[in-house]
């Protein structure tokens, strides 16, 4: 909730600041156009906003994980670390109540630590020492070293002077002191607002993990093997999908019989999410490469068939007529008019298919695989290796984005006439 409020605050404040500080060149044509509010074509993404947006994400991520990349004063309050202390008041049969101090050493999880040395002090209730990891909690058996134990009716009645009963709690400067139903104290040091690394590691931890895994690999395979296998599956599945789907789409676009025969199949299979096919494919083909490539083939097939079909139906009849009246034969019309005319649609389909295949391969690897990006994050999540999971998600995103960029580039190079008919 706090993070969300902060995010909105940064959004608004940076907007206002940029508005105040950056004056747009008013003679710019687009700037003039924006006079008409509601003209969508005049809306350009503000580069400054994009940069601030990305920085904000990293800032919030760093601030709430105590990252070294973010200056200390921007950190959200971290968990309490150090020596905490509180006093308790104990009663026992036949003696006056006595006070003693508990010193708890709160240490970052993963570091070696020892209980602090304390002087037992005066009175029958002795001072205690304990240690608890940050973000954890620990029971403190304060009666253990006292002169009267539980057998003598040792009962804690107050913490820091505040009365406490079983099931109750007292908030101290260092954290919460609770009492179990049996009367044992439980110290939970203040957690602060930062996330514990097992839930959300700091960005530099993720980067360090990336460096480590790209050097040493993970689960007997290098990082490049994991990513390479995922990519290989996508490309192989897409290749076969296009190999069958495009001719199928052409046939459906050019022949009544093919259209009638395959329409029900294609129209039925198209809305079936490829993920729903995973169980069946595993039953039929197992969890090996064949199964995955069949799955991706099926994911790409219908998209490519529909793209090719609409590419054929989209040809302007005047172009076909023009080719006929210039003496072209049917084969020549297919080769020189229908196929080139359908390429823009096929490229659009290919972009969609590659995106779907990439999503499907990751999901399929989550289910079962020996290598692959999805397998990497799935296995890591089972060991609560959140840094690997986040690293994997980022890499999957970057590759998906890269695929789309490459497809767009290829589209611009190969079908420059797209949308210019």
């Amino acid at each position, binding site marked *: 909730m706090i993070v969300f409020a902060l995010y909105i605050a940064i959004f608004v404040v940076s907007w206002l600041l940029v508005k105040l500080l950056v004056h747009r060149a008013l003679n710019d044509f687009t700037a003039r156009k924006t006079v008409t509010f509601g003209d969508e074509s005049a809306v350009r993404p503000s580069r400054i906003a994009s940069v601030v947006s990305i920085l904000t994400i990293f800032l919030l991520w760093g601030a709430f994980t105590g990252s070294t990349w973010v200056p200390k004063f921007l950190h959200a309050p971290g968990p309490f670390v150090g020596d905490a202390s509180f006093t308790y008041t104990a009663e026992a049969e036949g003696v006056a109540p006595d006070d003693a101090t508990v010193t708890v050493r709160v240490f970052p999880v993963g570091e070696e630590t020892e209980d602090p040395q304390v002087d037992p002090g005066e009175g029958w209730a002795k001072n205690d020492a304990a240690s608890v990891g940050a973000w954890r909690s620990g029971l403190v058996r304060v009666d253990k070293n006292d002169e009267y134990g539980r057998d003598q009716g040792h009962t804690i009645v107050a913490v820091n002077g505040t009365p406490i009963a079983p099931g109750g709690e007292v908030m101290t400067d260092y954290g919460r002191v609770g009492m179990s139903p049996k009367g044992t104290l439980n110290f939970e040091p203040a957690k602060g607002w930062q996330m514990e690394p097992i839930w959300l590691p700091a960005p530099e931890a993720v980067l360090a993990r990336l460096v480590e895994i790209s050097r040493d690999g993970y689960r007997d395979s290098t990082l490049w093997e994991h990513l390479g296998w995922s990519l290989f599956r996508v490309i192989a599945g897409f290749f076969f999908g296009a190999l069958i789907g495009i001719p199928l789409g052409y046939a459906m676009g050019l022949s009544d019989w093919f259209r009638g025969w395959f329409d029900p199949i294609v129209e039925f299979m198209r809305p079936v999410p490829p993920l729903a096919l995973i169980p069946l494919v595993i039953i039929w083909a197992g969890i090996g490469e064949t199964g995955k490539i069949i799955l991706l083939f099926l994911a790409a097939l219908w998209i490519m068939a529909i793209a090719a079909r609409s590419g054929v139906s989209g040809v302007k009849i005047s172009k076909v*007529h023009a080719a006929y*009246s*210039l003496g072209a034969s049917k084969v*020549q019309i297919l080769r020189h008019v229908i196929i080139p005319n359908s390429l823009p649609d096929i490229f659009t389909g290919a972009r969609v298919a590659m995106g779907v295949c990439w999503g499907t391969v990751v999901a399929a690897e989550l289910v079962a695989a020996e290598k692959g990006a999805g397998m990497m994050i799935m296995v890591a999540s089972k060991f609560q290796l959140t840094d690997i999971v986040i690293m994997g998600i980022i890499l999957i995103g970057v590759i998906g984005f890269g695929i789309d960029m490459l497809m767009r580039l290829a589209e611009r190079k190969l079908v420059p*006439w797209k949308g210019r008919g």
Partner: protein
Amino acid sequence: MSGLSIQNLSMRFDLPNGGSVQALKDVSLDLAQGELLSVLGPSGCGKTTLLNIVAGFLAPTEGKIILNGHEVRGPAAERGMVFQQGALFEWMNVRDNVSFGPRMAGQRERDYGATVDHLLEVVGLRDFKEKAVYELSGGMQQRVALARCLANDPDVILMDEPLGALDALTREKMQSLVLKLWKETGKTIILITHSVEEALLLGERLLVMAPRPGRIHREYRLPFADLGAGQDLRAVKKHPDFATTREEILGMIWDMEEEIMGRSEAAGGA
């Protein structure tokens, strides 16, 4: 026997609701080699249907078309067509568009190269031959379409409102170009247009068609195409007969439109 003969052509389209539309009824026409015919008429008079039948894209319900002694069946390179717009192949550059016909006929670059370059020169696109067609203006695109048609050396050129989408100035230039090409090549041309002025300027013969059913209403033989070839078209428009013929034809088409309106109003009222 050379020339184009359209004999008792009728075309009826059956509608899905059981009715039918008589797009053409008993249209007959003889065109000698090298004649330039323009066809005018209100919308729905079947002029585009007529052109599509001559091109071979449609088979008539009745009647036939004889070109140079042979009956026409299906589209062929002997009858080239120039469309209003959007019929260029945007995946080819200007020169590849123009050389499309010869290439499809299996000719080599050395066979057609000179002709294609000459045609590009004639239509004024010599410096644009490597450009993509979508980079050209509408007028230039129609020049490409004209050159592409001529490169195939057809016997008859069919033009379906080729200048309809152009602005007035470009249109005037293109009209001169069409006349010039007609004179130079001696092709038989059928030109469909919506513009009475264009029909007068470019028609050696002018056909006014009437709708429902589509039929020939009246035919003119005009001197303006011959006068206009090689000179300023604006001078031709000052010819005394030009204005009177234009008014006469405009009135004729106006009456037809009125009649259609009246008929559909009567149908609506009943």
